[in-house]
Structures are given as C-alpha cells and as structure tokens.
C-alpha cells in the first residue's frame, strides 16, 4: 500500500483562519501568581532523615560527579556500628540523577520537590541535607512559606518527591538462602544442620556487599570483612583466607558459631537481610583443604623467649598463633584431649563438628606451637612451675564451672557443661522422656536441642518432649533469635518469665519442677536481681532437669599468695590494662574471664591485644 501523497501548493488566505486564537484563553501560567505544582516524583533538592541515616557513605561512593562528602558531626552519639558522619551535597556538581536515593540502604536520603535557589554567595550552594524532623528553622509550613523567598534555607515541609523503593533499588535486599536440613529430619540425629554454600551461591552472596565497612567497626576483632568478601567474589579463596588470617586464625570454627556482630549492623540489614558474612567465612575455610599451601608464610626468626598459654580455647589458640608469628616459643596446656576449649565440649555436633575444630588446631600445631593436652594445671603440673620456667603466661582459662540454682533437690539435676561434654566427647548420657531445661541463653538452647536429639535417638517413635524455663521473657531472652527460631521449629516448648522454686522428687526419681512467676529480672541500676510473685505457681512435669544458667571461672589452680595479688573489676572480671596485662607480673589474660561479651570472637580480639602486649613486655625487658 503506497502513500499516494500529492504535493499541494497551498493557499494564501487559509492562514487567516488562525485569527480565532486571538480570542481564546492563553495557555501560559501567570507566574508567580499562578504556580505550577511539581509532580509527585520530582527530583529536586535533598532531604535526609538523621535518625535513620547510619553514615555508611554509600551515597558518596556512587555519585558520578563526586558531589557528596561525608562530614563528621560531633553532636551525634552513634550507636555501635554506625558512624557520626552525614552527607553534604555540593549543588555546583550535583546533576539530580537520584542514584544516591536508589542505593541508600536505610532509605533515609530522598529528593524533595523544591528546586529554587538564588544567591550571590557561592558558599551557600552546599547543603548538609536535613529534613523537617531535625531542622524546624528552615522547613516551613504552608502559611509561612512564600515562593518569593524560596531557597535552600527556605523550604516547604512535607514536600517529598523522589523516594527510595525496595523493588527498584540498586542493592539486593534478599539473601541467597543457605541450604539447611529441615527441622523434622534434623531433630532425629546429630547431622550438621547447615550444608554450606556452593561456589555459585557464595559468589552471588558475596556480590551483594556494598563495601561500606560499617561491619569492620562493629566486629570486636576488626576483621577486614569487605576485602575478604571481595576476594570470594573474584573467585580467589586463597586471598580471602589470607585476609581472614590477619586477624582471626580460626575461620572454620568462627564460620560456624560466631555471634556475627557484623551482620547485626550490616547496611543491607536495615531494610532487607544482611550479607551472610559468617557463612562466607565458612565457605572460604572449607574451600581450602591445606591452609599451609594457601597462606605461604615466610620463615620466622626465633627470639629465644618462651611463653606459656593456659587453656586451648579460642583465646589461647589465637594468642599462640600470633606469638608464634612473632618468633616466640609457645606451649599450650589444656585438660581436654584436644584443642578448642569450650568449643570442643560446648556447641553440639550439629553446629560444630570436631573435624572443623581439628582443622584449625592442626594448622596452628604445624607452625611449631607445642600442645600439651590432658594436662590440668594445678594437678598434672603446678602453676608455680609454669610461672618460674616461662618468660610470660597467658590465662585463657574461660568459664568452666556451671552455676547452680540451689533450689531444693538441685543436687538431682544435671549441670549444663558436664552434660554437653559427656555427650560430645564422652560416653553419652541416658536421658528421660520429658526433660526440663532451666535457662534462656545460648548454652540453654544448645542443651535443649541436644537433649531433644538424644530423646529421639534413645526412644525412637515414642512421644518425647523437651521444655525450657527461663526467667527472661521474650523481649530480653539472651539467646540469639536464630537459635530460638530453630529451637521452636524443632518442637521445643518455651516457658518464658518463670523461675525455678523446687524440684519435686518421689522415690528418688525426679517428678517435675515447681515454678513461680517472675516480677522483674533486673533492678533499677541494671543489676541482675530477680524478684518473684511467690503465690503464682506452675508445675511442669518431667523426669530430668538440666540447669543451664551460666558459668563461672575456676581459679583454684593459682596459689593463694599469687591469687591475692590478682585484681578484679566490680563486675567480677579480671582487671587488665590496655595491653592485656593483669596486676600480676608476667601474667596476661583475655577471653571470658575479662570481657562481658562472652563469645569466641571477642576472645580472639583480646588475644591479639595481649599478643602485642606480651611482645612489648618481652622486648622492653632488658
């Protein structure tokens, strides 16, 4: 079908028909008396909500014109894992593209519908972006606002334009799901619950990280997290392992049981799921079969000094590793048959198998560190001997004695640590059909879930139940949310807000636990001082009670004259200075006996500090 277009010459008079437009209403606006309302998605000047903003600096990294600088604001007291910096925008460079809005993880940076600024002084063209919540002076209500004075200092309130939308953001809020054994299957045995990432999945998860480095501040050991995640993304697990080993010599252990302070502050976790830093560390350590080949350490010059480490837990192993790298001769004493300390007996096999612990410990042993297992200091060897023969001593003894509730018949109840130890490296414990676990922390969760598995193994097909009783209610329960959710999925019944009163015993057998309702757990000063409603009672049936309410350290191996010189803080922790040195000469300490976090990675951080301290002490000596 061809267009048969003819060339018309046109006429001279027809154009006069347009004269009717003279009498029609004009289409232009009589500005500024009639104003044009900008559209709801207009991209104008910036707004920033200072309560949500974390100071991560992603907006400054993505701006194509480098228009945003992060400025330190001293009046803000940041929460842990946030910075006290806020973005400042130079409107001479900004092109109003809105990429900073699309990448802001908490969604605090937005663009408004104001776009006027007329001024003679060019210094006024930079703006520390705020909004009407924190800046009542410059954001005015509709009555006080006037278009004739509109500028960066005279803006309308509630005038948002282009806002962030999670569906169209530049970061990925969803995490790559970690393959795990489902609850119905995993509660029947001690199979390892988490199966680990494949190479594709690890690369995809590593590609989510925005490299804002807030996690590095929050990690107690200050690992170089964004660097090792980047190495995993580039398919270089050796490089990744090297970065981890600069601050943490136990990746296989920490990759399974770390508390992950980093994931709590991850930027992506503000409106999505945080980057799986812990699983990526596990991936890096699992990928490398032989650490020694991947790490390629240079030969170390020996200094000739000797250091003794008491306790082969995470603190002891780390201090041995760091001191060995500096050339010291290190001997580690531990009463257990292998390394790991609390890690060896505490977390059950479905969380931390023994092979993973041995992988890390064997590497440290291969560097030349001497391990003396099955050696209890105070029994097999005396503390005075160690104190005399070695140039420095590190106490990484941890908290090895379980606490007791001391209610009536509490001698019939099991304690958490012996229960876990017997099951993991001993002969095993015969459990009852209805178990009650007292406690609300992570050790209580470990005990309860282990007891449940033992019930299913020892009484297959029968009806069994495990219950927990804790003083703390849901909002202050100290166990991590992940553990509580997994425990609930496996069928463990929780009774929060109840305290133990008495264990009922009949004919020498445990019948159950009598509980009373909790009034409050902490007093006004925040100290642990629980109070109860004695009359409100509840009886829980059970044929076995396990107490998991906390652990205390055991200093009995230190002779009295040395122990009296050891100073303690008001919170009953060993007092140390900034180098990890205690009040006893030659003695350094770290780990659970020193800090309040009570987890592995803080022990490793303490160990690194103490290793530097021992190095300074021994070098300064003569």
């Amino acid at each position: 079908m061809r267009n048969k277009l003819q060339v018309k010459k046109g006429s001279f008079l027809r154009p006069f028909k347009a004269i009717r437009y003279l009498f029609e209403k004009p289409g232009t606006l009589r500005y500024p008396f009639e104003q044009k309302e900008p559209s709801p998605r207009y991209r104008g000047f910036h707004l920033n909500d200072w309560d949500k903003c974390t100071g991560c600096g992603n907006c400054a990294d993505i701006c194509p014109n480098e228009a945003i600088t992060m400025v330190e604001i001293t009046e803000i007291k940041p929460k842990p894992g946030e910075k006290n910096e806020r973005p400042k925008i130079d409107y001479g460079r900004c092109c109003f593209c809105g990429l900073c809005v699309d990448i802001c993880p908490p969604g605090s940076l937005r663009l408004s519908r104001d776009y006027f600024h007329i001024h003679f002084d060019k210094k006024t063209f930079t703006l520390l972006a705020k909004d009407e919540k924190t800046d009542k002076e410059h954001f005015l209500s509709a009555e006080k606002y006037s278009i004739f004075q509109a500028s960066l200092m005279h803006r309308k309130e509630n005038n948002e334009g282009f806002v962030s939308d999670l569906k169209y953001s530049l970061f990925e809020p969803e995490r790559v799901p970690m393959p795990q054994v489902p609850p119905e299957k995993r509660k029947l045995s001690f199979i390892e619950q988490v199966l680990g990432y494949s190479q594709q999945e690890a690369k995809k998860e590593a590609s989510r990280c925005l490299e804002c480095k807030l996690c590095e501040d929050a990690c107690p050991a200050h690992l170089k997290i964004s660097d090792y995640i980047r190495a995993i993304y580039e398919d270089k697990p050796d490089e990744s392992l090297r970065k981890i080993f600069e601050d943490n010599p136990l990746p296989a252990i920490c990759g399974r049981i770390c508390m992950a302070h980093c994931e709590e502050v991850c930027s992506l976790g503000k409106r999505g799921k945080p980057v799986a830093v812990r699983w990526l560390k596990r991936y890096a350590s699992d990928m490398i079969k032989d650490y020694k080949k991947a790490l390629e350490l240079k030969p170390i010059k020996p200094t000739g000094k000797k250091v003794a480490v008491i306790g082969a837990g995470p603190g002891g192993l780390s201090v041995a590793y760091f001191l060995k790298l500096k050339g010291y001769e290190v001997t580690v004493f531990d009463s257990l048959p292998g390394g790991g300390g609390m890690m060896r007996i505490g977390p059950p096999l479905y969380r931390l198998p023994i092979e993973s612990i041995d992988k890390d410990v064997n590497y440290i042993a291969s560097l030349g560190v001497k391990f003396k297992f099955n050696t209890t200091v105070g029994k097999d060897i005396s503390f005075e001997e160690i104190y005399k023969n070695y140039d420095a001593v590190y106490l990484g003894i941890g908290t090895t004695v379980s606490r007791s509730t001391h209610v009536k018949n509490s001698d019939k109840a099991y304690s958490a640590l012996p229960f876990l130890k017997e099951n993991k490296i001993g002969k095993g414990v015969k459990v009852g059909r209805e178990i009650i676990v007292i406690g609300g922390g992570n050790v209580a969760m470990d005990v309860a879930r282990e007891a449940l598995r033992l019930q299913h193994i020892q009484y297959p097909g029968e009806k069994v139940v495990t219950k927990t009783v804790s003083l703390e209610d849901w909002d202050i329960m100290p166990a991590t949310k992940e553990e509580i959710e997994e425990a609930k999925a496996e069928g463990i019944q929780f009774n929060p807000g109840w305290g133990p009163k008495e264990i009922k015993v009949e004919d020498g057998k445990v019948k159950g636990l009598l509980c009373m309702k909790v009034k409050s757990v902490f007093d006004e000063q925040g100290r642990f001082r629980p109070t109860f409603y004695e009359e409100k009672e509840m009886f829980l049936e059970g044929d076995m009670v396990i107490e998991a309410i906390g652990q205390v350290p055991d200093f009995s191996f230190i002779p009295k004259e040395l122990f009296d010189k050891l100073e303690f803080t008001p919170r009953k922790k060993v007092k140390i200075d900034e180098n990890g040195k205690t009040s006893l000469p030659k003695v350094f300490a770290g780990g659970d006996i020193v800090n309040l976090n009570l987890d592995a990675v803080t022990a490793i951080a303490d160990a690194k500090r103490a290793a530097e301290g021992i190095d300074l002490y021994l070098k300064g000596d003569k």
Partner: protein
Amino acid sequence: MKTERELELYFGPQHIGMVGNFSITLKVEGDRIIEASANPGYLHRGFEKLMEYRTWIQNFPMVCRINVIEPDSMEMVYAMAVEKLAKIEVPERANYIRTIVLELARLTSHLFGCWAYANMLGFDTVAQWAMYHRDLLLDLFEELTGARVYHIYIWPGGVRRDIPKGFKDRVLNTLHTIGSCIPDYDNTFFNNRLFYKRAKNIGKISKDEAKKLGATGQILRAAGIKYDIRKVEPYAVYDKVNFEIPTREDGDAYSRVWVIRDEMIQSVHIIMQCFEKMPQGEVYNRVPNPFKWKIPKGETYVRVESSRGELGLYLVSNGEDKPYRVHFRTPSYPHGLIILEKLLKNASIADVGNIMISLYVVAPEIDR
C-alpha cells in the same frame, strides 16, 4: 580562485538564524555561496573520554546529556548495548514502556524541529504553538520520570519506576489536545503558499547522492528510499505494533518537512497501540551490585532510529568494571559535516538556515 568580490563570512554561533552552538564559515560572492566549511566544537565536552573513568551504572546519568533535545534515544542505545554485552533480559512490560517513552520523545523532538524551522522562515505563530504543545508533553514526562528534560529513566535491566495511576488517560488526553490542532497547523503552515515558495527545490538531494554521502533518517525517506531501522532490525516492541513509513519523492526541504509531519501522526498511532497491548508484570530485572559489576570481554554495535536518523553505539569492554571504549555514531555527524557543505554550494545566504534546519542538524550531537 579568489576574486576581488569574494568575502569570508562567519555564520557564527551567535546568530538569529542559527539553532544551537554551531558555526559555518562561508565564502560568498554577492549573495551566492562558493564554499562552506563547518566549524563544530563549541559543545565538545569529551564524553567518550569521561565515560571511561566511571562505572557502568555511574555512566547512565551522563549519557542523556549528549543530545539535548531527545535524550531518551541515547539512554536507550546505551542500555541496549550494555544488556547485549552482559546478557541481561528485559521484562515484557518494560519494553512497552520504553516504546511509549521513545515515541513521546520523538514527538517532542519533531515539535522542536517545527519550532526551529518555522522560526527560521518567520512563521512565529506556528512556532509558538509547537513549543506550547511540546511543553504539555514535557509535563507528562515530569509525571512519569521526575524531570522534564533529562529523564534518566531507561537503564540497563528495564526502566526505573512503573507508570503512575491515571497516566494513560492523561497521555491520551494530551495527544487528543494536540491532535485536534492539526487542521490549524495545516492551514497556517504546511498548506501555506509561502512555505511552498520558500522551501520547494531548496537543498535538493537525489537518491544516489544521499546513499553516497551516508545519509540516514528523513533525508533518505524524503528522497524516496523506504528505510527505517524500526522495521529492518526491530528493537523494543516495534515488531508487535502496526505503523507505516511515510516517504516522498523529491528530496528537497519541502519534502523533508512533510515527512516530519507525517511521522508525528504515526507516532501517535504507535503510542495508542502500546497502551492497549501492554501486559502486567515487572518492569525491572535487577542488575548486579554497582560497585562490583564486571562485564565480560567483548564488543558490540547497536543502533536505534532516533528522530534524526540512525543512532549507533560502539561499545568495547575489557572485562573490567568500567567501559574501555565508547563511541557514539550520531546522525547529525554526516548530515552536518558533509551533506551540509555539499548542499550549501551555490545556495543563497538567506537559505543557509533553511537548509541546515531542514537537514535536522543538532549541534551537541556532532561534538559529543
């Protein structure tokens, strides 16, 4: 041979008859031009070098600034090239929205061309009508994308946001408003005897000359060759909508302006069909993390039919997170530098603006 009556004139960047920052050096004898040479370079911002220093997503707000009058086709060609190299799929609904945006951009560009041409000839009334109708379309863009001129809307993976509620009715209302003025446009300008006398047989180019000099776009179609990239190598959803390609036979300025008018009507048909056929669904397939995204090695050449002709992009990637070489093939480059010089020989000074604007040359596209 230089005679005593020869004079060198600068049809310079500040001139009432010039649109855009572009200058031509003319050697004239009386009213006849003997030789013309174009002087581009007033708008050279060095985009292609600057884009090598920014990552793939950071480049995307910069691309639209190359052609000031129709920025969407630049964004489209960059997004298509990156998607081809990185093998990214675009959802169906996003393709429909992209087509609507491109056709609306074509309408605004043609209305701008009408303003420029009518102003040049002295038809101020029609010029102001064209600008007013273009303004109504820019309001529609503000509602969809957030800005009137530099939209920054089409990015690799889809489009940036979904269409707001009630957008379809507003678009159709605006198009109806503009469409009902077409008889007035025809009476006042296109069917005007004065326009016929000013533009007929001016800037004539034959079929073979056009092909030899590398012309694309309206110049080809006004000379009688039916060639449109939207039909030859369809992209977005142009293979799913019905439209025709208007052509004329003569190849002079008169035919070129009539071809522009007919194309505007075809654009309206395309937009209405797209709204009817658009499915529901997603509009964006997320691309990888902008700080870490690396595109594998390769090179590609993609092209798009912009309102002026063939717009192409030659993109080379070296496996890094930044492009290695970016080269835009803009349609005004051969039109403004070769064809213009050829056509201005033996023309009169009064026709310089006439010829230049009917060739649809836009200065920022030449310089990049």
